[in-house]
């Protein structure tokens, strides 16, 4: 068997030491009626080489976005992953380590988390960031629960411009606890309706949940209604695209209480949508309601600087049914990758990257809108993603483009039904070139 050490002789001598004669006896504790007689229905084992061939064949039945010209976004972005990120995260000291409960022999992981928390804090402008959540969707859902708990209130307003997949997860989570959800519709410019928001506020409202840039790529302006929310005693919860924070006002600056987001784009391959990286940051006030792990700097008994998990009484392994969340295993290795990524880019590189994506997205948007019949769906400001209203069903365009090795974007009818039949969500990263833009526009013109 692969990966096992024991020789037949080992097994014999170990059994003998216990006075046993066969391994079957080790299963005596299982009532015989529950002992399996048949073999598992999964066939015989493969050699390593057969296994590789097997998975190569499976992978060969995919056509990866990474090998095409991709304008797919919607939360998952095709950014360059620096080589050093792969190499360093492939060190088995990192990936085969357990959760760093035993601080003395986990300083590597702990310091990485501390650095990650610091970076997320600096990105979002909020003082506290946890060690990660499963993904942006669950982070968003958990922050809604957190707002409810922190305020003791039971209604949440949420923008309908939030990534529809996040909305679904939000709904799944929140409805479990008999919390009420009130949607905030979009305005014609692609942002949320400030007036509706103000009207919907009330003293039962725990929080207002928005996303910026929102699913349609449009930047919201939460500072405009931040005070109203505060006055109503509710929390402002914002989902952000971390790269947008290279250029745009961070949640902490405009007084958001909780910020969450998806860290996949920070040095991680799309991986068919997982593993992802939910990040979560909040104001100092809410630290005891925060789910997930936290690392603190401290000292060891020799006075050496060291790091440790802290405030664990928030967590399930200590507080059990009273914990802030049930989360245990998180997305540590993805957070490590993102930490390496952000360290490689640094302040200047990160700012540059934001600028490149912004510039390229706007360049492509202007090229597309100069194609007859194509226009921007929303006039609001955007970062690197935007919706194009096409003269035909967007699905047709997507299919056409695919035939030329281009993934043109996400046809919005998928999520928003017939009204959006001609809408295409297009994302642009630094990988895309002028040549890619020309190819896409040529196609659009032909369709």
């Amino acid at each position, binding site marked *: 068997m692969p990966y096992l050490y*024991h020789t037949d002789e080992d097994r014999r001598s170990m059994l003998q030491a216990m006075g046993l004669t066969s391994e079957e006896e*080790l299963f005596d504790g299982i009532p015989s009626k529950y002992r399996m007689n048949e073999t598992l229905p999964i066939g015989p084992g493969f050699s390593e080489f057969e296994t590789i061939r097997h998975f190569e064949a499976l992978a060969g039945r995919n056509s990866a976005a990474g090998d095409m010209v991709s304008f797919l976004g919607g939360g998952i972005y095709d950014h360059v992953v620096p080589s050093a990120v792969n190499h360093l995260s492939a060190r088995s000291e990192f990936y085969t380590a357990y959760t760093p409960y035993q601080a003395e022999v986990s300083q590597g992981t702990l310091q990485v988390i501390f650095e990650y928390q610091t970076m997320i804090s600096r990105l979002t402008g909020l003082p506290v960031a946890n060690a*990660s959540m499963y993904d942006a969707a669950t982070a968003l859902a958990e922050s809604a629960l957190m707002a409810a708990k922190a305020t003791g209130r039971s209604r949440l307003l949420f923008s309908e411009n939030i990534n529809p997949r996040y909305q679904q997860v939000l709904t799944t989570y929140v409805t479990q606890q008999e919390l009420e959800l009130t949607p905030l519709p979009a305005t014609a410019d692609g942002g949320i309706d400030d007036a509706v928001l103000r009207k919907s506020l009330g003293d039962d409202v725990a929080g207002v949940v928005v996303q910026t840039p929102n699913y349609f790529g449009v930047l919201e302006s939460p500072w405009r209604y931040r005070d109203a929310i505060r006055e109503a005693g509710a929390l402002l919860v914002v989902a952000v695209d971390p790269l947008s924070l290279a250029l745009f006002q961070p949640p902490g600056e405009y007084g958001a209480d909780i910020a969450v987001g998806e860290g996949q784009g920070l040095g991680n391959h799309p991986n068919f949508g997982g*593993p992802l990286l939910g990040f979560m940051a909040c104001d100092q006030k809410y630290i005891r309601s925060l789910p997930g792990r936290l690392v603190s700097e401290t000292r060891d008994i020799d006075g050496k600087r060291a790091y440790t998990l802290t405030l664990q009484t928030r967590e399930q392994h200590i507080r059990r049914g009273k914990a802030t969340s049930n989360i245990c295993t998180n997305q540590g*290795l993805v957070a490590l990758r993102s930490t390496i990524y952000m360290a490689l880019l640094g302040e200047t590189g990160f700012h540059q990257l934001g600028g490149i994506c912004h510039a390229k997205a706007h360049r492509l948007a202007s090229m597309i809108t100069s194609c007859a019949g194509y226009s921007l769906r929303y006039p609001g400001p955007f970062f690197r993603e935007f919706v194009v209203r096409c003269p035909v069903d967007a699905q047709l365009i997507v299919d056409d483009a695919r035939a030329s090795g281009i993934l043109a974007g996400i046809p919005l009818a998928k999520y928003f039904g017939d009204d959006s039949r001609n809408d295409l969500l297009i994302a642009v990263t630094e990988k895309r070139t002028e040549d890619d833009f020309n190819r896409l526009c040529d196609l659009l013109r032909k369709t």
Partner: protein
Amino acid sequence: MSKTLFEMSRKGRRGFRFADEPAAGPVDVAREYLRKAPPRLPEVSEPGVVRHFTELSVRNHHIDKNLYPLGSCTMKYNPKVNEDVASMKGFAGLHPEQMGTDVQGALEVIYTLEKQLCGIVGMDAFSLNTAAGAHGELVGMMIAKKYFQDRGESRSKVLVADSAHGTNPASVQMVGYHDQAVPSAKDGEVDMDVLNSSLDKDTAVLMLTVPNTLGIFESRIGEILELAHARGALCYMDGANLNALLGWARPGDFGFDMMHVNLHKTFSTPHGGGGPGSGPIGVKESLARFLPVPRVRKVGKRFRFDDDNPDSVGAIHSFYGNFGIYLRALCYIVRHGAEGLRRVAATANLNANYLASELAELFPIPYGKRCMHEFVASGESFRAHGVRTLDIAKRLLDFGYHAPTIYFPMVVREAIMIEPTETESKETLDHFVTVMKQIAREAVEDPDLLKGAPYNTPVRRLDEATANRKPILAAPLNCPEA
């Protein structure tokens, strides 16, 4: 002590550059949208980043270094080929919004793994969308809730063994249910009398871990599940300890209605210093319609996502869960085959029993004549010398071992919970025993030695109290730079 990245930072250093940097012009948008200054990420060179993380890495214990006797954690060897498979470009480069025809291989992976897990645990349907064990439990509770709503019953209590993992009661609470602990009887198994009296009309779910955290298989499992079913409750199994059963017994056959599996335990996917994991949730046919969306269906020879399920608890992940982890788990299953998995369980149990029997003299094992994949010993006898289990655990670090899980489960005093896993050699187990014996001797002869341990680790015992009182959760913005 390593500098932090922020202390290494030097304004103007670059670790990575982009081809089109000149393209990034000024951002033409109303001023209010703009950030005043870019986020203060540290500025480090590529070699600097490489050295920093390399240096940090060697301050970790990890499975490629030595034994991780952590009970309940199944820290087994993470096969290297798993990583190769997961990093194939045809998988890693897939965007989740690609069209079905472009992702047939990926869908087949999901479909196949679901089917294989069904076969392994005796369930009828699995959803892989849950990103960790706790996430699986949560969806289990959501399913129970839907199930009872569907039947028009209002139940809100979940019985959880007192030795259960903390995520169990926490997951219960997440759906608005409340948990009630079922104590262990003297034999370490569920106390049948208490169970009988607790299982009332308000009980939605009975949640058990099998084998339980003491490493004991509930000998009355059939009876227990029948009783719960008779009272109208659903039975959920925390499958984190599945490693003990692979190929020998199937929770579905015991009568469980639902269970989750931890791919990052039983199926060898790496723990990554805390994650990502994957906690697929499996159910019997009658509950399949409640599983999260999307699900993968096979229609003829094609695979496709099915989002359209009105009975579903809904979506519980941005996309389809931790796909990269499925690849590793499936790779593990493919490598082993039926016979291989059976050997895994046999060996896991062999190692645990062997270790238990070698340690029992000095560290008595209060529950169970025989364990399955793990056991809980007690360090109580050393309290007389002022030595606590914590001290024993810390001393182990000096010998290059990770510490066992301690003080859990609570039913054993000064608990030392050990799960060696199957991927350890007899030599390692024997050496571990030798070290434990030495520590036992030290505990008697020189208790202060243990209380001061560890000595040979990158740092020594930490001041956790201060960290709790005045947590420092981020480096200061004005920390000294290089």
